[in-house]
């Protein structure tokens, strides 16, 4: 889920931490959206404790208390994804300094070279909506945002720095709100670390956005056009969704690396993320060998669930790729339409100028203006197509890849177990032979080896069972997240279409009397 997640803090007895942020049992997702859409509270109002809902927090926590352990994320407590009006504002104004304690510092953070566009503010609301719809277990109080891309340095050594802001009530963090500056390779580094640690457990680790040598070079070189602005914005949004997914994941959130990433002021430069480095090459080789081994493993699984799900994932990925290609085509055609409309508008204006009947001339000029406005609409629509729809699809194509990786991990674990079993078998055969041949000293060694391998077999079997359980759990969680994500993003997209049509209507309504006035 690409949203900042809200989770019930692990049961705090008496629930005295009345964090005004965390409590309004709001089961109805619609409400949340309404609140969100109609929002205009200034940021400074953020932390008024919501005394009106005194009762409800208690309910919330009583439910939370039934959850077992701090880490347990299997509980089915309902009332989550709630927040007060105020919180929406927090993340609605992306450019605002996130330390809510000082309303005075709400001015835009310094040096922001990139002014938030329509899409920037649009992505934030989405995180709130996600919140509303999550009827899921965990609802820790945690929100992250990636903002204010800034170009640091010059020439080919330049890079973009992003401000990562966190707001949380989780006790494991030092402060309630804090922000740090990170660069793209830091995000990649985080992914590498998490990958190494958790992928063996069968966790689905959200993949970061892709590197882009071309895009980055343009930015470095300082090409100041809309395409590099687009690129930066796209990357910023993608990084934000990436982080949100990471903190959404209950076990990843506990990882100290994640904490460090969010909190620590200076991160050591992540090496091994550069494409052309030694580590990069090593990764490529590993990936290749994985691909080969993947083709040869086939689990004779008594549990057909995994097979089915893997097939589903694969076919879904295929469909999403197709869809993504079509949406891309749509974006391009809309951009084309945009350009052609602008050109046509100018041409119409010229025609209006040369027309000598005054009323008709005026009408033609008006038509030219309407077409101009259409052009703006088309442009916004194309941006919406892209940033909402295309990016959603791209994200999920990558995520499905990660899910497949998960399944593959499980297969590897199975293979390891099977291999251990066959080794054990061989050792037993050796022992049998030795018994026959009656060589006592070698026998001893053989027996030791057998014990060792028996241990390993048990271990690996346990590993396999454990990873199966984890993968299953992760997959279900992923499916839920995906379902919510798609629904909310598509609804958002449709709403943008809706708004566009409304303006359409307005423009043509304004033109009609002009056309009728021709005499």
């Amino acid at each position, binding site marked *: 889920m690409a949203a900042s997640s809200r989770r019930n803090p692990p049961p705090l007895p008496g629930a005295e931490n009345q964090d005004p942020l965390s409590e309004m049992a709001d089961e109805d997702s619609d409400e949340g959206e309404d609140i969100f859409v109609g929002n205009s509270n200034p940021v400074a109002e953020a932390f008024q404790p919501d005394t009106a809902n005194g009762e409800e927090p208690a309910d919330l926590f009583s439910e939370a208390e039934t959850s077992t352990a701090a880490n347990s994320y299997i509980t089915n407590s309902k009332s989550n994804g709630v927040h007060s009006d105020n919180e929406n504002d927090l993340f609605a104004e992306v450019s605002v300094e996130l330390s809510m304690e000082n309303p005075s510092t709400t001015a835009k953070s310094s040096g922001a070279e990139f002014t938030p566009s329509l899409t920037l503010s649009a992505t934030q609301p989405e995180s709130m909506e996600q919140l509303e719809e999550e009827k899921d277990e965990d609802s820790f109080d945690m929100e992250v945002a990636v903002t204010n891309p800034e170009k640091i340095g010059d020439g080919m050594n330049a890079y973009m720095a992003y401000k990562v802001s966190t707001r949380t009530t989780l006790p494991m963090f030092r402060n309630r709100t804090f922000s740090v500056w990170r660069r793209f390779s830091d995000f990649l580094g985080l992914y590498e670390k998490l990958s190494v640690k958790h992928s063996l457990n069968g966790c689905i680790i959200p993949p970061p956005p892709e590197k882009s040598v071309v895009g980055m070079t343009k930015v470095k070189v300082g090409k100041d056009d809309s395409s590099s602005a687009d690129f930066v914005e796209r990357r910023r949004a993608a990084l934000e969704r990436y982080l949100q997914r990471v903190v959404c994941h209950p076990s990843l959130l506990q990882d100290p690396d994640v904490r460090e990433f969010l909190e620590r002021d200076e991160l050591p430069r992540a090496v091994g993320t550069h494409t052309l480095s030694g580590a990069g090459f090593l990764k490529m080789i590993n990936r290749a060998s994985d691909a080969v081994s993947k083709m040869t493993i086939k689990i004779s699984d008594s549990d057909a669930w995994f097979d089915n799900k893997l097939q589903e994932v694969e076919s879904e990925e295929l469909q999403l790729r197709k869809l993504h290609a*079509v949406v891309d085509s749509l974006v391009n055609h809309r951009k*084309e339409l945009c350009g*052609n*409309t602008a050109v046509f508008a100018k041409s119409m204006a010229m025609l209006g100028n040369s027309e000598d*009947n005054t009323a008709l001339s005026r009408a033609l000029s008006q038509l030219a203006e309407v077409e101009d406005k259409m052009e703006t609409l088309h442009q916004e629509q194309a941006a919406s197509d892209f940033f909402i729809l295309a990016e959603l699809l791209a994200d999920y194509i990558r995520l499905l890849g990660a899910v497949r990786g998960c399944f593959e991990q499980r297969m590897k674990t199975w293979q390891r177990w099977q291999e251990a079993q066959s080794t054990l078998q061989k050792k037993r055969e050796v022992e049998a032979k030795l018994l026959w041949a009656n060589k006592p000293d070698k026998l001893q060694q053989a027996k030791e080896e057998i014990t060792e391998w028996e241990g390993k077999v048990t271990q690996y079997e346990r590993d396999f069972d454990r990873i199966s359980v984890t993968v299953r759990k992760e997959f279900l969680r992923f499916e839920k997240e995906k379902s919510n994500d798609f629904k909310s993003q598509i609804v958002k997209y449709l709403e943008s279409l809706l708004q566009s*049509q409304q303006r359409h*209507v307005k423009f*043509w309504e304004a033109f009609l009397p002009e056309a*009728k006035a021709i005499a």
Partner: protein
Amino acid sequence: MEGEPSPRSGAGFHQGSFPLAVNVDLQTDATLQVDISDALSERDKVKFTVHTKSTLPNFKQNEFSVVRQHEEFIWLHDSFVENEEYAGYIIPPAPPRPDFDASREKLQKLGEGEGSMTKEEFTKMKQELEAEYLAIFKKTVAMHEVFLCRVAAHPVLRKDMNFHVFLEYNQDLSVRGKNKREKMEDFFKNVVKSADGVLVAGVKDVDDFFEHEKTFLLEYHNRVKDASSKSDRMIRSHKNAADDINRIASTLYTLGTQDSTDVCKFFLKVSELFEKTRKIEARVAADEDLKLADLLKYYLRESQAAKDLLYRRGRALVDYENANKALDKARAKNKDVLQAETSQQVCCQKFEKISESAKQELIDFKTRRVAAFRKNLVELAELELKHAKGNLQLLQSCVGVLKGDT
């Protein structure tokens, strides 16, 4: 001046109910009513059934029909152009050749690519291409009809003998298309004519009205040409976007049918929505094509015809001035004076005749143009509004349903 387009009737695969988009001031004159009541599209050509109702005495019957092809229309148009008597009139522009090549090509490509798409996709695309083909067909019929109606409405042209033959002679006019040599001749004639046109245009006219018209028409014609091509491109982009939405709808449908989970039902609903909005978008593009692009194209051709009229007048003026000079020279030399006098008189008459009718024609042209633009722009705005509102409603209801579900 502004009349209603004549009522249509018809059945089957013809354009009967296709309203005249570009011309409004056609008198519903009972003495001569012409329309195209049916049309048949065969592999290479289109056969138009020209239907006439007339109370004029020179026709054998009061109502009759003949079948004509595109070349015969062109023959008729050319005969007007070449007739000196009509030099002072704006000759209604000839209808463009029916061009189904692009559509046919697309249908062929679709047939070839049949294997690579699902059955639903294929049927859908086929339906669309067929609809496109039908739309082009309707348009070409309308263009041919407009031409005939303009001729029938013109007080002088309607009496033309060739026109009557065209309407009545119920056998093949054996008008063959121009062969290569004739086409080359035409080409050279055009080159000469445009060179001449430049020369003639350079001559300043005494008459302010015509001088103004000349400059006006030149600029207007160029700008209409520009606007016409730009509008075509814009509409094509629009169609492309609508096609994409179609494909999105299909893919969403496939995604939606893979399972019966919540999200799959969601996909199905969205797919349905996109299907409907796509239809509306395609209609928007088609209406823009009809009301805007066709209008511009038509006035491109008419303004060219008006320019041609001015050229002919200019030519006549130059001839007249030359004849004057020749007369003066002849008088001075006192040689062939009578010949020069008659020639000068002829030129003078010709020039004055043209000037007189040309003035009226140009004024009529302006009135017609304003009326046509008004009608089309109003209809365009109304249609755009209707579609935008339709789209809006669809979106609103769908979003309502989707939000209610989640």
